[in-house]
């Protein structure tokens, strides 16, 4: 703050620096030095370890293990996103059509799980779904199965945990988008002879499409970087990109491949954001205004 005052006290016409820039400076310095600079280093490693060139990136199309892992990642992310959007859409749709009091209760049921520690949630799912967990106990008690059903430590477990994590992220932007739809449009469609389903399909759904795309890309981006849930619920069988990178860096110490995958992941995320910014106003999603 002392610096800030000094710059105002000085000759402003000569300095020509907006004094408010001084307020941004501490954070900018912190970010540049501790975040952007090492990020650049990671990028450099990806093209120089073990030797200079693009051979690390070439592994994206030639290395079988990496290809398989990428395939798993995209498959899990796409299915998770589709399921989370579907369930999220139903909840958001219900939320715009219920009374205020009802909506507050729904919001509570969304926000509490949303804020609960990701580790506590993964742990709880593990407890619910393992061979002697509550779900299997119920299945046996009801005589549906004799043998425990493998619900966790496989891809199914990853889906259950990840869809659970992503649904609130789908609901909140979808709900915000749907609330902006003028209900008179639907009433007009009905008045002009459309059935309830037709009014939804041809009026409500298209009007909610920007929110749907925005939320979908957001959810997909978040699933791409997932680490905790697949690592715990996948039981080492469903390796996604984040866990793969961590193994490269912490266990096999292959910085070249690890940093290459990190850079690739970052570029995909930024590219998707760029696509999304065409469909939705990013500034409103990130609270700029």
């Amino acid at each position, binding site marked *: 703050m002392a610096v*800030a*005052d000094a710059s*105002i006290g000085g000759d402003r016409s000569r300095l020509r620096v907006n*004094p*408010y820039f*001084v*307020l*941004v400076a*501490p*954070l900018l310095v*912190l*970010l540049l030095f*501790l*975040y*952007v600079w*090492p*990020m650049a*280093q*990671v990028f450099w490693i990806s093209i120089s370890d073990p030797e200079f060139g693009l051979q690390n990136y070439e592994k994206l199309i030639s290395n079988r293990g990496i290809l398989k892992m990428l395939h798993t990642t995209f498959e899990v992310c796409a299915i998770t996103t589709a399921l989370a959007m579907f369930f999220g859409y139903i*909840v958001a*749709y*219900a939320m715009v*059509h219920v009374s205020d009091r009802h909506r507050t209760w*729904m919001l509570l*049921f*969304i*926000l*509490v*799980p949303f*804020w*609960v*520690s990701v*580790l*506590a949630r993964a*742990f*709880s799912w*593990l*407890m*619910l779904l393992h061979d002697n967990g509550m779900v299997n*106990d119920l299945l046996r008690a009801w005589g549906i199965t004799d043998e425990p059903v493998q619900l966790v430590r496989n891809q199914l477990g990853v889906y259950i945990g990840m869809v*659970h994590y992503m*649904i609130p992220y789908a609901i909140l932007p979808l709900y915000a988008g749907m609330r902006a739809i003028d*209900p008179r449009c*639907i009433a007009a469609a009905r008045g002009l002879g459309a059935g*309830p389903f037709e009014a939804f399909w041809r009026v409500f759904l298209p009007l909610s499409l920007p929110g749907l795309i925005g939320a979908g890309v957001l959810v997909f981006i978040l699933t*791409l*970087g997932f*680490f905790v849930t697949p*690592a*715990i619920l996948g039981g080492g069988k469903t390796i996604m990109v*984040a866990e793969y*990178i961590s193994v490269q*860096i*912490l266990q096999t110490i292959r910085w070249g491949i690890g940093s290459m995958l*990190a*850079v690739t992941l*970052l570029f995909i*995320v*930024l590219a998707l954001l760029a696509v999304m910014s065409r469909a939705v106003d990013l500034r409103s999603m990130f*609270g700029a205004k």
Partner: protein
Amino acid sequence: MRSDRYTWRFVLILILAWTVLLYLFLPIFVAAPISLTPDRYLLMPRGEYSFRHYENLFTNPKWLNSIWQSVVIAVCATTIAVVTGTLAAVGIWRLASRFGEAVRAFILLPMIVPSIVSALAFFRIFADLGLLDTMPGVILAHSILAVPYVVITVSTSLAGFDLKLEQAARNLGASMRQTIRYVILPNIMPGVLSGAIFAFILSWDEIVVTLFVSRLTVFTLPRRMWDGIRDQADPTIAACATTLILLTFATILMYLIFQRHNASRAKLQRA
């Protein structure tokens, strides 16, 4: 849509929606009963209950140390994130230019970048600076990850703040420091507080970056849970998870009360 509200179609949608919401809530109820098991294994208690795992959580030096470290890290990281983030948000708001918007996008990066990528960057720079496995290292990393949330909540508050008030203060001779302290800050306090809550929860719960930048000296609570879940079946984890869930409930409740209090105060002021 009003006419459709009580049709069977809408009832069906409501049933589906509440099924989804129950799925969201399901894991919330699981940890608590398991944490009360008298066994040394992660099993549902059958008739007998015990608080021994809570006792372990709050007396075992390992768990206590982790709780203490997590609290210190979260408090320090929140402080750094709130101070730098609030100042930056005010700066950008006042700059109100293309340049300001570019800076904002830049500041939001740590929120957009997948945490595994951030983890690599921190691992790299902290190795060079000798900050690996130190408290300052973890604190700095968490501050940077939390800053975007503070900038967002404070910016939202600033959007509802009349720029003329700031100009009036400056015209009446207040320095920039005085203007921020006596005019801007009191008005954006709700945003600053929400930002602080976000930052605290983020740091308190952070695991991916922490896995990379800490090893033995620093062993946060999420780190201990992570090891516990993956390696052994210690019911203390259930006690810990239950405690975290209860804390979440308490925080949300406090936040709702705080918001209601603010809303009623705003109503009084308008009246």
